[in-house]
C-alpha cells in the first residue's frame, strides 16, 4: 500500500472586541511517534464564564498529544484527571487574589474537547479515530463532499450549554461517560476539519446550503488574514456568532507537500 501523509494548518480568531491573546480555545497537533502511534490532533473550547479557561483548554489538548493516552474511557479518565491536577497546581496560582481563588473554587473551568488520531497511514486501512465531548466538531470531506461529521449536530443543535470537560474533580467520571467515539477511513486527497462551535455551526449551515462552495472556500484558505476576513464578514452579517473561533484543516495526501509556507 502507498503510505499517506497528513499535515495540519490552524486558523484562529478571538472574539470581535477582544485582543488576539484573549482567544480561549486550544488547538494542537503532534506527528506520528516512534512507537507507531499516528499523528494526533486536538481542539478544545474554553468556557468564557470560567476561570483560567485558556489554560484549561491548552492543558487538555497538550495532554492528549503528549501523554500515553488511548481512546478508551478508562485511559481518557486518567488523561483528564492529570490535566485537572496540573491546572489546579499551576504555579501561576501562587499570585492569585481572593476573588480569583473564590472563582477557581466555586466555578472553575470547562471546555468542550475533540481529540483525533490518524492510524495505519502506511498500512492497509488508513483511518481516523476520534473522541468528542461537546460541540467542537470534526468534518471529513472527500471530493468536495462531506462524508462524515462528528459529533452529528444539526443546525439547531448548537446550544450554549454543551457538554464539556470540567475542572471539578467530582464531576469528571460522569462526564467521561458522555464522551462519544467515531472513526472513518482515509484516502489521499481527503480533508479533515476540526472546528470550535461558532465556526462549526456556520459550517453546518453552509454545508446545508451549498457545500461545494463551502469546501472550496475552506480548502483555499492560505493565509491567516484570509481566515480573519472570512470570519469578520460572516460576523458582520450575523451569520456567525461573535465567539472565539478555531479551524484546523488536516490535509491527507500520498506525498508530502513540496513547499512549507510560514505566515508571519
Amino acid at each position, binding site marked *: 500500500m502507498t503510505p499517506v501523509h497528513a499535515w495540519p494548518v490552524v486558523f484562529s480568531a478571538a*472574539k*470581535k*472586541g*477582544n485582543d488576539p491573546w484573549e482567544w480561549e480555545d486550544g488547538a494542537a497537533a503532534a506527528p506520528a511517534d516512534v512507537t507507531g502511534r499516528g499523528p494526533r490532533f486536538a481542539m478544545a*473550547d*474554553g*468556557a*468564557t*464564564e470560567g*476561570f*483560567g*479557561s*485558556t*489554560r484549561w483548554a491548552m492543558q487538555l489538548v497538550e495532554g492528549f498529544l503528549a501523554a500515553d493516552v488511548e481512546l478508551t474511557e478508562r485511559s481518557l479518565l486518567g488523561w483528564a484527571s492529570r490535566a485537572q491536577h496540573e491546572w489546579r497546581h*499551576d504555579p*501561576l*496560582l501562587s*499570585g*492569585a*487574589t*481572593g*476573588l*480569583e481563588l*473564590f*472563582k*477557581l473554587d*466555586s*466555578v472553575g473551568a*470547562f471546555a*468542550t474537547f475533540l481529540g483525533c488520531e490518524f492510524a495505519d497511514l502506511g498500512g492497509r486501512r488508513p483511518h481516523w479515530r476520534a473522541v468528542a465531548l461537546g460541540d467542537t466538531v470534526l468534518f471529513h470531506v472527500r471530493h468536495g463532499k462531506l462524508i462524515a461529521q462528528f459529533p452529528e449536530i444539526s443546525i439547531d443543535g448548537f446550544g*450554549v*450549554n*454543551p457538554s*464539556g470537560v470540567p475542572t471539578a474533580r467530582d464531576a469528571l467520571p460522569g462526564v467521561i461517560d458522555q464522551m462519544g467515539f467515531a472513526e472513518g477511513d482515509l484516502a489521499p486527497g481527503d480533508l479533515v476539519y476540526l472546528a470550535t*462551535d461558532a465556526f462549526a455551526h456556520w459550517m453546518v449551515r453552509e454545508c446545508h446550503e451549498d457545500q461545494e462552495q463551502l469546501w472550496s472556500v475552506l480548502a483555499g484558505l492560505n493565509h491567516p488574514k484570509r481566515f480573519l476576513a472570512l470570519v469578520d464578514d460572516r460576523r458582520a452579517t450575523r451569520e456567525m*456568532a*461573535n*465567539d472565539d473561533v478555531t479551524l484546523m484543516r488536516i490535509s491527507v495526501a500520498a506525498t508530502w507537500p513540496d513547499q512549507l509556507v510560514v505566515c508571519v
Partner: protein
Amino acid sequence: MTTGTYRQWVSRATPGCVVILLDRSDSMKLTWGTSGGSLAAGAALAVNNILLDMCVKATIEVNAPVRHYFDVGVFSYGARITGPGGEGVESAFSGTLAGRGLVPLPELAANPVAVREEPSIDAMPVSVKMPVWVDPVHGYRTPMCQAVEVAGAHVFDWVSAHPDSFPPIVINITDGMVTDSPHQGATLHDWAKRLTSIETSDGPALFFNVFLSPTASQEIVFPSGPAGLPMPGPELFALSSELPPPMAENARADGYDVRQGARGLAFNVGRSTLLRVLQIGTRVPDRSR
C-alpha cells in the same frame, strides 16, 4: 410589547450598564420575615451579592484584570448619609467610591468598602466572608421620583457613550409607596417613561421593580398582568418593562412560569428570591462558553 431586540452581547467593546435604586426609607428598618434582619440589611446583602456575582463573572484568569463588562451604579433614596444628610438621593457606595455614579466593574472589584463575614443570603445558619460595597441604612420618606430622575441622568450620559450596547438595566428595590410624586411636575409614571425612552440601537432602557414585604406573603414574580396584585402592585406593574426574550428565557431556565408579556416585577419576595431576580435581571446575552 418589547420594542428592542435585546440581543447585543456584553463585552468590553460593548459593555453593559446596571443601575440599582435602593430604597433607604424609614420603613426599611422593619424585620424581614423570619430572617431576623431588617429589610435594609437584607436588601444590602442582596445588592452586595449581585455585585460580587458580576465581579466574579468578569474575573477570567489569575493576574489578569477584572474585565470591564459593566458600568455599575447603586443609588439610594431616603436617608442620606453623606453631605448634609436628611432625605434625598445619593450614590450608595462608600469608602473610595463614595459619591461616584457609574463605576466600571474593575474599579468596583478593587474597591469594596470592607471584606467581612456576612450571613448567607438563603437563610442558612452560616456566614461567609465577602466584599461589601453597600451598607444597610434607613430613614425618612421614599423619594422614588428623584431616584429615577438621577438614574435617568446617568443612563442618558452612558447611552451617549455606548450607543450600540445592550440597553441599560435599572432595578428598583423598594418596600413602600412613592412620596415625592409628582416631582417637578412629573409623576412617577412620567419619570419611568422618560427613563425607558432612553435607548441604544439594541432597545430601550429596562426598568424593573422589586417590592419587599416585611411579612410572609405570597411571592409574585414576573407577572403578565396586574390583576390580583395588592397595592402598590398595579402601579409598579405599569412602571415595569416587559422582560426581553433573553431574560424571559433565563427566568424560565430558573423555573419561573414566565408568560407572554411578563414584566420585570417581583412582589413580596424573600431574600433568596430577591437575589435570584437580581441575577435574572442582570444576566444579559453573553457567551457562556
